[in-house]
Structures are given as C-alpha cells and as structure tokens.
C-alpha cells in the first residue's frame, strides 16, 4: 500500500469482514469495525492490533437505526488517509419463514436494502469531498433474478446493485470508485447447513478477491468468478420457462 488509508468494514462480525479486515490491516490500513455486537468486534479489534499493529476502532452500528447513520458516517470519515468502505451486512431469512410471517420482510429489506443505502448515502458526500476513496458493495447472485426460493432477499440485493451502479456513476466524477460484488456461496453462517449449497468459497478467498477487484478498479464482478457463466445462463432463460422452474 502506498498512501495512508482507512477501511470501514460494515458488518465486521461476519467471517468475510474479519478476513477482509485482517488483509487490509496487514497492509497497514486503519480499520473501523462496524456492527451490532460490539463485544465481538472488540475481540476482532484486539486480534488485528496484536497481529498487525494497526489502529482499529470497534464501532456500534445498527443498519436499522437510520437516525444514527449521519453521525456515524461523519465520524468515520474523519479517519486518516483515504477513506474506503466495504459493505457486508445483510439479512437472509428463509423464504418460507417470510411467507409464514410477512413481518420478517420488513427486517430483511430494512437491513439488506434500506440500511445499506442509508449508511452508504451518508458516507458518499464525505468520499466525494475527498475526491478519492473506494466503496465495495457486496451484493449477491440472488439479486440477478427473482427465484421462488429467495426472492425477497434477492429483490433487496437487486435494488442494492442498482443503487451501487448509480453511486458509481456519481462518485466516478469525483475520482472515487464503487465496486459491485455479486457474491455466490461463501462458507459463512448464512450458508452453513443450508440445503442446496455447493462450491462454497472460504471467507478469506472472498476477501482476497474483493480486495483484488477493488484495487484493479473493476466495476462489477462475480465472486467466485465461475458464477458469471452460471448467472448468464440463469438470466437468459425466458420468463415463460423460468416461472415453471424451481432452481
């Protein structure tokens, strides 16, 4: 790493967040670990400080506490060097749980879509003003097409993808960059023991790929990359056939 930088890890208790923080801390970045379980984040912060002597802050952050986002963004944006963020949080109840209790839909969309947009939209002006910086928005292959098994979560991620495209359009003018990651199956608590999961990528492999794509200033990428051809096929199935399938 050449210049001083800060990475804000939104959803830092996730194993991908932990792996990502370890990677950028090893490169000398300052870290903000943002999430709800501050006690857990403090444990990760201690690990990062000892392993890499990085400056690390564990910050309480609740995606659904929209009123707190402006202050949080302003505070984090004062961190040293170029300020970057990676957005990792989301909430994925099983579709049948949502069908049984539609109130879950509010939480799913509230965290995965509204919460994500809210914090990014408060961070955006700060990054814009500095005329440099990077946002990695981690979406999902589930956002590429609505499927019977996962369409509420999928629609929230699809919305996030569209938002990220717009934000990329906006921040590019200021010299900042936005990367949209469409994540396949990663080996996290979200997929652990879930049916129909295959070829899971390790959290560290995902973190490494995210960082590599961001440094290469990719705009949109699938991680792992083999999801690109898979989703190309899934997206190209005509709707009149797709509606009969249950993939």
């Amino acid at each position, binding site marked *: 790493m050449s210049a001083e930088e800060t990475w804000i890890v939104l959803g830092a*208790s*996730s*194993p991908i967040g932990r792996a990502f923080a370890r990677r950028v801390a090893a490169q000398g970045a300052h870290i903000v670990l943002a*999430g*709800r*379980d501050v*006690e*857990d984040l*403090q*444990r*990760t*912060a*201690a*690990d990062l*400080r*000892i*392993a890499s002597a990085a400056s690390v802050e564990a910050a309480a952050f*609740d995606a659904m506490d929209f009123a707190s986002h402006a202050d949080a963004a302003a505070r984090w944006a004062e961190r040293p060097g170029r300020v970057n963020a990676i957005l990792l949080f989301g*909430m*994925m*109840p099983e579709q049948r749980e949502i069908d049984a209790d539609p109130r879950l839909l509010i939480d799913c969309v509230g965290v995965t879509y509204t919460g994500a947009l809210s914090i990014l939209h408060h961070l955006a002006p700060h990054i814009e003003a500095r005329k440099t910086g990077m946002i990695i928005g981690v979406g999902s292959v589930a956002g590429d097409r609505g499927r019977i098994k996962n369409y509420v979560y999928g629609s929230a991620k699809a919305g996030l993808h569209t938002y990220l495209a717009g934000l990329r359009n906006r921040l590019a003018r200021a010299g900042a960059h936005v990367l949209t990651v469409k994540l396949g199956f990663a080996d*996290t*608590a*979200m997929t*652990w*023991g*879930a049916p129909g999961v295959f070829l899971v990528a390790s959290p560290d492999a995902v973190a490494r790929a995210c960082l590599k794509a961001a440094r290469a200033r990719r705009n949109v990428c699938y991680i792992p990359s083999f999801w690109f051809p898979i989703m190309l096929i899934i997206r190209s199935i005509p709707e009149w056939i797709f509606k009969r399938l249950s993939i």
Partner: protein
Amino acid sequence: MTAADNNPKRAGVIPDLKGQQPMRWKNFELKPWGRVCRAPTTAARPERLSEIAPIVRENHSNGLSVYAAGRSYGDSALNSNGQNCLSERLDRILAFDERTGVVDVEPGVNFRKLMNVFLPKGWLVPVSPGTSFATIGGAVAHDVHGKNHEREGSFGQHVSELDLVTANGVSHRIGPQSRADWFRATCGGCGLTGVITRVEFKMRRVPSAFVEAKEQRLENLDGFFAAFEAAKGASYSIGWIDALARGAALGRGILETAEPAAEAGFVWRKKHAASVPVDFPAMALNALSVKAFNSFYIGRVPKSGRQRLRAYEDFFYPLDAIEQWNRIYGRRGFHQFQCVVPYREGEKAIRRLLETITASQSASPLTVLKRLGPGRAGYLSFPMEGYTLALDFPNRAATEALYRALAGVTLEHGGRIYLAKDALLSAEAMPPMYPELGEFQRVLEEIDPDARFQSDMSRRLHLRARA
C-alpha cells in the same frame, strides 16, 4: 491489554445473541488425521463467543463433542451420530502483554498463527506439538508436549488461566490455582469437561527465529540410549528410528538436539508447502519403499554428524511442509501408536517394542523416539518420566493385533498410550495406564452429571464412570 479485559460480562455470564441468525446445524462426516475412524455427525460452527452457550444448552441426543483442527489421529474429537461443536472460527488473539509475554487467545487459534505473529517480535510458544495446524484448544485438551518436554513440561503447565463453558452453558474461569481440580480435568481431558473458550499462557523470549541443530547418526539402540543420556541438558531433542532395521542394527537412527541460536535474526524464509493431491494406492507404502526412504533419510546425515541453523518452523514442523501427508497411507488411513514407558523399564521395553515392530515389517517411515520428563498438567495427561516411541501403521488386517500387542508390552512395563493418537485401546487398559482416571471421573461427574459432553473415545474407553 484490551478493553474486553475490563468487561465484567466476560466471565460468568454469556451475553445474548446479537445481530446474528439462529445457529444452524449441518450433517456431514468428520474424519480425524488418521482417517480410519469416520463419524457421521451434526455440527455447529460458532463464529462468536456468544453462540457457544446456546449450542451447549441444545438437546443433544447422543452428546456433544468439540472438534478443532482435526489433527488428533483417533476418535477423541469424534461423536458418531451425535453432535459436534467446531471451534475453527474462534481464531482470535485477544490480548498480549509485551512486558511479560502473557498471551490470551480463543481456542481455534493455531500454532501457525502464533509463530507468524509473535516470532518476528522475538516471542515463541513455550511448548509446541509436531504440527503447527493444531489449535490451542486442542493443545490443552490433550495436554500436548514438544521436543523440549524434559525441560519445559507439557503445554498445560504453561497455562495460567482458561475459560470453560460447562454443560449448563455457564462460563467458568479456572486455572492451576482456582478450581484446580476442574483445571486438571480439563488439561488432557479430551474436551469432556466443556468448551474451552479462552486460554491464557506465557510465551518466551527467544534471541532469534532459529535453532542451532545438531544431528548425529546412531548405529543401534544402545548407541541411542547413550546419546540421549549425553544430551540430557539440551533444550530440544528428538530421535528418528528406522523401525525396519533388525538384529545388530535394531534402533539405528538419528538424534537431533537443538539450542536457540543467538543473533541469527527474525526473518526466515517460509517454505512453500507441497501437497499430496490424491490418496495414494494402498500398496505405495510397503517394506521396500519404506526401507529405501529410511536409508535415504539416515544417509542425509554424514557419519560424523552435522550442525546447521534451522528456522523454528522447519525444526518443529517438518511434516507441515507436505500438506495432507496423511493421504500417502491411502483411503483406508493409518493408526499412530504412541506410548511412553518409565526410565527404569525403558531400555528393555523399547527393545521389546522395536523387536515386535520390526518383526511385523509393516512400520511407517519416521518412527520417533524421545525422552520425556515428569511434567504433566492433568489427570489424563500423557507424559511420564521415560521414553516415548511413536510410529504409524497403515490400516491393514494385521494392524489391530499388532497395536494390541504393543499396547500389551507398554502396559507390562508400566507405560501408557497417548489418547490423542489412539483409536484402538480397550477400556480395561485405562485404569492401570491412567491411575488418576478415578479422580477425573469424579470431577466429570460434578461438572457434567448428565454426560452432555461425550465422544466416540469417551464411550470406547469408558472415560466416564457411568458409561
């Protein structure tokens, strides 16, 4: 020290679930390093401390067992048709005091991470097993020893404190001074007292990342015992024996001793690990190929011996240079036999064991002979003052009988078998080999009266009073 140290929540009370989905369980098959045992299980994989208590409190039809890196050879971590708690994701270093070297870690932290983080700063683990992939939780649960056991004792003897979530889901802080009996049951207790969630121990300062290693060739067992006697004051010592050599050459091999090297610096070249990509065919390891390997291995060291600078990493973990080396034994896997026999019987017993082994001509390359000191931290700890012999046998029809014969010789000479390696011992051998088994069972009865923590090993060896 971290802010977390001042948090009163850390001991006694487990905080509520925050920002996470309910724990899911996954059905699959767990295998230990020896790959003979296979256990269909339902496993949870917590990523945070707060998930442990709910996992422990679940209703377990056939008990719960903690599984860490899967580097034990036998069935100590397995729980067939029951449940497992995987500790691999609890992998953070929680605190480090640069003045004293006291470090505080989660149970899934492995020796590799500790080497990578602390050795460049001049700190080394006090005791290390033969693989860096073993975790600290596992090191406590088997009270592991290293090449410096004579001088430094077992791993558990360096632990000042640990947190244990017991069967009722409550976390307890225990150590050699507080709840000493619980601590003694936990060190070497094969995970049966509960889930270890934090371990505090002391690292030691070293002058460099290297040792000055001396190797000498020994022509037979008598030579070996004499050389061990002469090397008594060495910081580290380890012997490799050609377990196929018979007659006058019985017990020929190499003794390697080492001292911390001064002023060699803290930068070492990390070797890129090779990997065994597929299971070897069963016949790959036969008497001929092993004989050739052993001759080559011993022949590397000149007759006059040699001295060289070695990185701790290479010296401690020679087999880590080959990922998944367990695959060379093929799909059927292998058994590792490791025993210790007391000094007074040592020479006679080792000779008998080696004669039995060479007669079978089925031993693996790299048989290890070492001296152990008296240091042990728990009721079921392996070490005793004496000689320890360790070797692998491919899993074949005759292996079980050979293993039992060797265990019989061990028992006759007042020795014991290492539980971290074992999958074949029978329950009757436990009380004579482990005289403190009764104490262990009494404490277990107190900590976990409903036998919530169980394993294939605990059932096979009747480690609980009520099996």
